[in-house]
């Protein structure tokens, strides 16, 4: 069974060590939650997996192939989709154009239509706004579009950076439910970076807690959610 394998990953920005010897494995059909405070290195971790930053040492492997020397475009073509934090939709483009852009490298012109319709089926609010520019969307719709645009290329690994940031709790809950179902239905490997530990632990099978660039906990999500002391110490609730 293919897995995403991160081994001894270290990333520095000049003299600042953002990540030090991070190792964990994310499996198919599972959500792996990466938790930690602001500045712990969670975003850097995802950026290192997709090649946006180069690790100082360590490896990233997916399905036996080493990703950490490849270009971003090549990593994407290996089925890794990354939804960056915040407003990563292209505001100057319509909803439809954003989705088309996500499908470009993967599908021919003819195949694209049905694939994009699938995404509209997954996120019905987007279907009503397909001709609108993305800057007219609400926060929740933007996040749906960003995730939909990643899914349209039928990835095998989905990296999500703070998808709940700035969303109303009810919207977050709906998004998490869609993610949970999708992960199982499509047998995805999902790495979910969140500050909102409670909602991400509710759908995750595995949890990795990062503190100051190091992995401090790597365990079952249910176990972490049940361990009051650990939760207090690292997650603040």
């Amino acid at each position, binding site marked *: 069974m293919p897995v995403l394998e991160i081994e001894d990953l270290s990333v520095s920005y000049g003299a600042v060590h953002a990540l030090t010897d991070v190792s964990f494995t994310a499996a198919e059909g599972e959500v792996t939650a990466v938790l930690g405070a602001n500045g712990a290195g969670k975003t850097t971790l995802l950026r290192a997996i*997709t090649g*946006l930053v180069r690790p100082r040492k360590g490896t990233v492997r997916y399905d036996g192939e080493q990703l950490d020397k490849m270009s*971003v*475009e090549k990593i*994407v*073509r290996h089925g890794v*989709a*990354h939804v*960056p934090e*915040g*407003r*990563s939709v*292209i*505001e*100057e*483009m319509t909803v439809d*154009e954003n989705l*088309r*852009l*996500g499908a*470009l*490298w*993967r599908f021919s*012109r003819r195949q694209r239509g049905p694939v994009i319709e699938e995404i509209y089926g997954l996120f019905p609010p987007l279907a009503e706004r397909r001709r609108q520019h993305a800057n007219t969307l609400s926060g929740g719709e933007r996040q749906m579009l960003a995730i939909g*645009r990643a899914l349209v*290329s039928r990835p095998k690994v989905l990296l999500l950076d703070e998808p709940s940031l*700035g969303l109303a709790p009810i919207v977050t809950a709906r998004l998490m439910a869609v993610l949970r179902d999708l992960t199982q239905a499509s047998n995805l490997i999902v790495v979910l970076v969140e500050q909102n530990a409670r909602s991400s632990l509710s759908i995750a099978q595995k949890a990795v807690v990062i503190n100051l660039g190091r992995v401090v906990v790597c365990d079952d999500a249910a176990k972490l959610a049940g361990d009051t002391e650990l939760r207090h110490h690292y997650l603040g609730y």
Partner: protein
Amino acid sequence: MQFFLNITLGGIATGMIVAAVALGLVLIFRATNIVNFAQGAMAMMTTYIAYAVLHKGSGYWLAFVVALATGLLFGALTQVVLIRPLQGKSPLNAIIVTFGFLIFLEGLAGAIWGSQTRTFPAPFSEAGQKIGNTQIAFSPFDVFVVLAVLALMILMLVLFRGTDLGLRMRAVAFAPETARLLGVRVRPLLTLGWALSAAAGVLAALLVVPTSSLTPNFMDVILIYGFTAAVVGGLDSPVGALVGGLATGLSLAYVGGYLGGSLEPMAALALVIVSLMIRPEGLFARPAPRRV
């Protein structure tokens, strides 16, 4: 009234040429945040090549096509050789390089072809037309100028709005990192952007050279007007380039017509100052990104 009409028509013709220059600047700026000071000089070099082709005895249209093709190639080559190595550094580095390239090219052209003025023919008559009893200062060549630039604009519109390639180019311009995460190969698109930009500059040069005559620095003034237009319209908006170009052309024509031709450069400066005071980001610029 007839005088007003005539200078308006003249302003439109000039404005379209200025718009082509501005479009070239915008194509590069919005993809890379680089202002290409060498655009005019690159077009000037290409025009000398077109001149050489003409004087080999070929017809105007062959020279026209050769110039555009050379322009595309020259733009791509400049990006690969001069600009690509500076990628990832401050855009200011590349801007200074383009400025140096401008001085280099004008020096080189002077060394090869000398600084004497040469006349470059127009494909159509430059004489005004009589409609009924009224003399209109709009020549068949002016009609060609307007149509050629309109054709360029429409081609760009079709490319950007109607094709996958255009979708990719827009993605790279608006959000390069997001584009890469969606599997877009950015490097060849940047090269293509420079090629198209240079071709727009060459078109402007070919349209302006019959009236200004060919010298190593004949593009300097029109490039300044192109900057004016791009600043007025918004440095990252192709529509802004067209509107800014027409606004600049008309302002120049009215000031030149009513107040005297020597005031034209001042009019361009005044236009920049006023537009920067009222709308510093330009008429059609997209709003600066906000972080929440």
